[in-house]
């Protein structure tokens, strides 16, 4: 079975500062990894995903994430955040090829301050 741990429940950061949201996963088989964002009072939407290939994945809104198999991590980064990035961010994992269930982490609340 797969599991996901998001190491920070809240991350406050000033506007234009860099940010890293941490995600570790556990799985005995190959996995697909996702980051989703949830803005207030909305559903989740995909930021980026890793299926295979290059371990550095670029997503929307200037976000990127790096898949590190040896450390079983998939941390999300942005070099300079905006107020509009304030949202809940979810890391998710599913078993690659034949997986039926996506496991979501508990979420990290990113709060960008002016």
């Amino acid at each position, binding site marked *: 079975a797969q599991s996901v741990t998001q190491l920070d429940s809240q991350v406050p950061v000033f506007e234009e500062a860099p940010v890293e949201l941490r995600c570790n996963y556990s799985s005995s088989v190959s996995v697909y990894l996702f980051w989703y964002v949830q803005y207030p009072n909305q559903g989740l939407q995909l930021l980026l*995903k890793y299926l295979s290939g290059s371990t550095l994945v670029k997503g929307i809104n200037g976000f990127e994430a790096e898949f590190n198999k040896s450390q079983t991590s998939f941390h999300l980064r942005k070099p300079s955040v905006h107020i509009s990035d304030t949202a809940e961010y*979810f890391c998710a994992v599913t078993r690659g090829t034949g997986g039926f*269930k996506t496991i979501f982490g508990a979420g990290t609340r990113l709060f960008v301050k002016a």
Partner: protein
Amino acid sequence: DTAVSQTPKYLVTQMGNDKSIKCEQNLGHDTMYWYKQDSKKFLKIMFSYNNKELIINETVPNRFSPKSPDKAHLNLHINSLELGDSAVYFCASSQGPSDTQYFGPGTRLTVL
């Protein structure tokens, strides 16, 4: 055009009542899901259908019953509502079971 839509957006009801939430997707996807998000934002899968067949049925009280009349629709019926059922319920769809999921806007259920 909304890709995944849910109705109603808000639902306020008394304990013991029965209610339904409807979901429709116009993306042509084969897989649909119901999730429950609690007040701490924790997202838990409840059910998943692939080509109208139930493929995931998590430990959910049998007061909750999903129904998929066709691939584009997945409805959730809840009997005998309890206070603990208060949450935001999200419908989602994906091309396949491990693909990117597209979420609806959510239905906020409040049980009084």
